[in-house]
């Protein structure tokens, strides 16, 4: 059995003259939770479409669980569980009818099916609503049911699109717990999310896609560290003047310094020695009213890599 769950080798996908994915190579190892991040239109949906066999690359190779996409896409789909963003549940059917329909599509053996449905519904705390129409479910219940359905055929690879989308805090936490349990059982999980806290909590590694290219690939903590190890947020009176910002930027170990109103945000690399020099430089020129020190957030890493302009 190969140790690689997903392998993209120099994959390019074009739609006419538009290149959605540009010579992208990526490996997702078995048993890890991998997060694919990127702004709208970055190419992550196109990548997921290729991994799940809904689309073929214009060039390059895609292997999922050791199977070549072009050679046997149906075998890949058999081993892939999917929780789409919009759930794709039949709302006018009951929870159980949805699961039985999925079992038929994925040829789940009839023997033991009742027990399997019961145990998965119990795990998702939906057993009592087994005979209820899905249209009567809350957003969180639908999400949990979609996850139960994706797990019904015991997939080796689970793709979860925006796990926390449209669910309350309790449901989100329950979904995250289920995903982490899957990892413990050895299931590979691929998620796409725009909610970076979710990526931070769940993912072993993150791939950040922008304009069809992989712009960063590492663990959440390493990604944050690559963007500096400390962020200083200071409030001064009077507001920091341009010469103070320039002075701070010139200090060794300062990654960035941005002034906004009476605030100054400085990202540094080098720990306490550098932060001390930054604070000294600031208090020499102005009065420091408040200071906070923290690690860089994934949001800052993401925006730093992909920019702040809106994408459609």
């Amino acid at each position, binding site marked *: 059995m190969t140790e690689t769950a997903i392998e993209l080798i120099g994959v390019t996908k074009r739609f006419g003259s538009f290149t959605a994915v540009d010579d992208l190579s990526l490996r997702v190892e078995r048993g890890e939770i991998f997060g694919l991040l990127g702004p709208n239109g970055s190419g992550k*949906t196109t990548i*997921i*479409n290729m991994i*799940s*066999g*809904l*689309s073929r690359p214009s060039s390059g190779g895609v292997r999922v669980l050791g199977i070549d996409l072009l050679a046997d896409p*149906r*075998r890949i*789909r*058999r081993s*892939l569980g*999917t929780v*789409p*963003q*919009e*759930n*794709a*549940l*039949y*709302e*006018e*059917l009951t929870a159980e*009818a949805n699961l*039985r*329909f*999925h079992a*038929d*599509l*994925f*040829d789940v053996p009839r023997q033991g099916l009742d027990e399997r449905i019961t145990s998965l519904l119990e795990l998702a705390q939906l057993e009592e609503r087994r005979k209820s129409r899905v249209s009567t479910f809350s957003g969180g219940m639908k999400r949990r049911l979609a996850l139960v359905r994706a797990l019904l055929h015991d997939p080796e690879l689970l793709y979860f*699109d925006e796990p926390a989308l449209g669910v309350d805090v309790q449901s989100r936490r329950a979904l995250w717990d289920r995903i982490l349990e899957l990892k413990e059982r050895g299931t590979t999980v691929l998620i796409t999310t725009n909610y970076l806290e979710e990526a931070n909590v769940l993912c072993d590694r993150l791939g950040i896609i922008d304009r069809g290219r992989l712009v960063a690939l590492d663990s959440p903590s390493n990604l944050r560290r690559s963007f500096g190890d400390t962020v200083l947020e200071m409030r001064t009176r009077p507001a920091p003047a341009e010469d103070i910002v320039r002075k701070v930027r010139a200090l060794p170990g300062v990654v960035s310094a941005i002034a906004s109103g009476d605030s100054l945000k400085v990202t540094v690399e080098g720990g306490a020695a550098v932060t001390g020099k930054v604070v000294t430089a600031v208090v020499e020129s102005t009065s420091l009213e408040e200071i906070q020190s923290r690690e860089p957030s994934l949001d800052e890493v993401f925006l730093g890599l992909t920019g702040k302009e809106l994408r459609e």
Partner: protein
Amino acid sequence: MSLRHDLRVVRAVAAADIRLALREPLFVIIGVVIPINFLLLFLLFAISGGQAPIAVVMNDRGPLAERFVQGMDNSHSFVIHTASSADAEREIRAGSIVAVVTVPQDFDAALNARTRVDIPVEVNNLNVDFTNDIRRAVPLSITSFYADAFPEQVVVRALEADVQQHDTGYIPYLAVSIVVAGLMLASLLQGSVNAARDYELGTIKELALAPVSRLAIGLGKMLGSAALTVASALLVLGVVILLIGVHPLHPLEVLGFGLLMIAAFLALGVLAGTLVRRRQQAIPLAIASVLPLFFLSGPFGPATWLGAIPGAIAAVSPLTYAIAAFQHAFHGYQTATQDLTVDTMVLAGFALGAVALTALVYGRRGVSH
């Protein structure tokens, strides 16, 4: 992948579609209301346009006068009732009849004396179609009556030789054509709505991401739609047989050709639904497809009577062959130059082609995360 799995998928997709359709009010509209309305609408159109309601004022009750009125009745051009002069006048003014024909007081005496008889005909010439019917039919009735009453004086007569073994009424002929159009409409509607539903609700992903063949999904869709369409078809046939009184001479042909037609048009419906992806667009598209094809496929008479260009279109329309086959199944005669074997082959070929095309397009077309 195995045949057993494919069959399991076909059954599951069909069952799911049936359950979903039965839970939607839309099913009653497209499965019952539209096909039955279609049938009744055209029959009403035929009935209202076929025979003009007229009143006859009998100022002479002699045997020749009675025979004349009987002759008019036998001409199949009028719906006749007798009335007093005052009632007839009131009716024509109210617009409830098209004409008043008055048999004069001295009708029998004048005819026996071989003198000229003028028959007053008052026409409500509001609608030229009905007016011309009256203008044609009254003189024809007079001629027919005269030739019948005084055969020695009318020496020219038509000798009719019938191609078919029996006459078929206009309504029974038309009813069969409408049944075919109704089946086509019901099939297209069910197929397209069932296919579009998955795209509209996003459930197409569940199908597209399953490790199954497109053919199995497409066949499941068609089977589910077929079960629903057969229910509509039985309803339409029930109206034609039980209410209109048109009975099939060859019921097995009705069954065979009916299933062939349903398969062909269901496949086309699934294809259309896959392409438009919205039920709101699928329904008018189905209706808009059926109406012109219906008129171009010989619903009122054999398609070969339509003329060169409409005839050429009719020759490639599967509805033409379906109507010809159904006319044989119901009335036992051939309305087209081709025989039943050709009808069967064309319909079967069309059904297979439509199923293959649908299977090719259906499933993963444009589905995305």
